[in-house]
């Protein structure tokens, strides 16, 4: 399931498993799924919710209950409690803070509800039946490796990093991965700013960053949604001496990469379909079906999605599955 971000993608890439997929898609027992995620205060999070809803809408046997997005763990906990009270069959939970939601998720599991943990991990393996994760650390590593390749031999290269919301563990994981990969080829991050995953904050952070560093060789921007703002700021500054690597993999950025007329050279995918995958897995679990492509008769405990680097060479492969932010 490494690249199977949406069903369309599956159709084009996973032809071999068609039979199994069809079997799994056959309507079964009615499944009621609760979904809760942080506030959609940035594009990727908006895309997550949208993809989740779209996925659920494809199955006549799935009823999805979506709670208001929130960054208040207290409210999110109560949403899960409400799902428990509602006696849903499964909960797909993208917690604002994994550790903070662990207790209530465990409670849900104990109440016999299948919990699918998405994106931000609980700190206790009993709290979820299955976990769908992006690879934040891997994203950093991929981006760093790509930068290393591009800057081969340039020992004093200036590398800048525009992070996302700095207080999130996922941002820290991405930065750590990036740092590690750079260290492998003897480079380091010289300037680091943090934005908030929004276009506006990206523009702001980039504008300040460009002043702080008069000469840059490469920029890694954690998030393509804030990247729109980053690119606007770069365009405004008129600077061209560096290249940019994106993150998350929005359709906009991939089109830019394909066109090849901007500084955006590559992006690292962080699938926005984790919630959608969660819904699928939840349905399979409740209906007691297995993952089609695996021999294993149970759905795995953990699915970690891959974070590939998209460049002009392979962009066509990923463009159809990219999210419109």
């Amino acid at each position, binding site marked *: 399931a490494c690249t199977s971000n949406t069903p369309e993608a599956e159709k084009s890439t996973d032809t071999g498993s068609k039979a199994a997929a069809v079997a799994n898609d056959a309507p079964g027992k009615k499944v009621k799924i609760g979904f809760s995620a942080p506030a*959609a205060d940035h594009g990727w999070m908006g895309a997550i*919710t949208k993809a989740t809803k779209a996925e659920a809408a494809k199955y006549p046997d799935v009823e*999805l*209950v*979506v*709670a*208001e*997005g929130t*960054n*208040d*763990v*207290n*409210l999110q*906990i*109560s*949403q899960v*409690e*409400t*799902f*428990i*009270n*509602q*006696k849903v069959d499964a909960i797909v939970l993208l917690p*604002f*803070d*994994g*550790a*903070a*939601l*662990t*207790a209530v998720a465990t409670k849900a599991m104990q109440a016999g509800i299948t919990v699918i943990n998405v994106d931000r991990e609980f*700190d206790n393996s009993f709290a979820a039946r299955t976990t769908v994760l992006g690879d934040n650390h891997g994203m950093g590593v991929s981006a760093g490796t790509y930068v290393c390749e591009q800057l081969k031999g340039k020992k004093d290269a200036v590398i800048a990093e525009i992070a996302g919301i*700095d*207080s*999130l*563990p996922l941002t*820290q994981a991405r930065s750590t991965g990036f740092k590690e990969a750079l260290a492998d080829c003897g480079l380091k991050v010289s300037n680091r700013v943090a934005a908030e995953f929004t276009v506006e904050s990206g523009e702001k952070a980039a504008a300040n960053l460009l002043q702080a560093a008069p000469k840059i060789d490469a920029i890694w921007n954690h998030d393509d949604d804030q990247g729109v703002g980053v690119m606007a700021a770069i365009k405004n500054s008129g600077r061209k001496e560096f290249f940019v690597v994106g993150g998350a993999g929005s359709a906009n950025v991939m089109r830019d990469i394909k066109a090849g007329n901007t500084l955006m050279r590559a992006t690292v995918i962080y699938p926005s379909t984790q919630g959608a995958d969660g819904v699928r897995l939840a349905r399979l679990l409740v209906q007691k079906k297995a993952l089609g492509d695996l021999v294993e008769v149970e759905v795995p405990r953990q699915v970690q999605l891959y974070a590939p680097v998209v460049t002009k060479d392979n962009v066509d492969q990923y463009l159809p599955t990219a999210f419109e932010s």
Partner: protein
Amino acid sequence: MSEEVARPPVTDQPDQPDQPADRTASTQATVTQAPGTTVNRGAGMAGSLLRGGVGRNLGLVIALVVLCIVGVATGGDRFASGANVLTILRLAAVIGVVSIGMTFVITGGGIDLSVGAMVALASVWATTLATQQLGADYGWIFMVSTALLVGAACGLVNGLLVAYGKIVPFIATLAMLAGARGLAEIISDRKTQIITVNPFVDFFGGSLIGVPVLVWMFLLVAAAGWVLLNRTTFGRRTFAVGGNAEAARLAGIKVQRHTVALYVLAGLCCGIAAVMLMARTTTGSATHGQLYELDAIAAVVIGGTLLSGGRGTIVGTVIGVLIFTTLNNVFTLNNLSISAQSVAKGLIIVIAVLLQQRLAARAT
């Protein structure tokens, strides 16, 4: 027994066209206490709390009831079940305690933007390894006291800045918001700190006589707040300081010291809320309590406390908190699109306030 302060005359003339907005808003909070009410004051505190509270907050109560009816109509048993009611109350508890503290500060003529940050800092401080070690060795009381102390200390700084530094409350507490959250991030290294002291989680996460400990705590804080505001010299002075600081000063009230006390009280409430949130999430984190300042101020103001000070009602605040939390619950049950929820929320706030005003005006 006037729980809350009585109203200026302006409200009494619905026919007055150019009435200034602020004045009118006051209608929410209270109804001029007719001399007659003194007759049945023998009925006692609890009785008068209920009567007075419901009477003066009729519109809000109706808004809440309507919300509940909608909840039952759309959610049926799922809404009306005991478990769901407890869910609502548990959700309300944390922000409720914060709002009680906020009620005091606002009634006293101030405002506190730092509540969320104080909750975060207190939760982080109380869940550091060192504190948890203490908690594990000598009982969770150490974690609780740490949280309360940190909250009160932040409140003290707020109070000193406002009362003696003479910085407008908005700015002083905005600075505290930035400072406390930054400090929380530094202490926790931006990691979520998991609580390993099980007795702590067991106690505060548990129930007493079928009601969650958190809900008991909320009830206790609310009751204590009500008594403090309406039945003590401290409360009376709070109204005076918020209503006319200069007059209070000339009347011999220690306005500065009182102001400090109000902010300490709000900080203390944040410390309590931090303990509750720690129990609920089994973590301490610098991201706890985000936007609590807005939520708390909204609950306080919708409850009828005057943002400019001098008038405050604990009962109104509690109803205000319940309205917002019930709204969230009903939304979650009903699977409304998230954006639509946002729009609906805006509309419902406006309708609730208009209702409350019209009813309060009629009641006079």
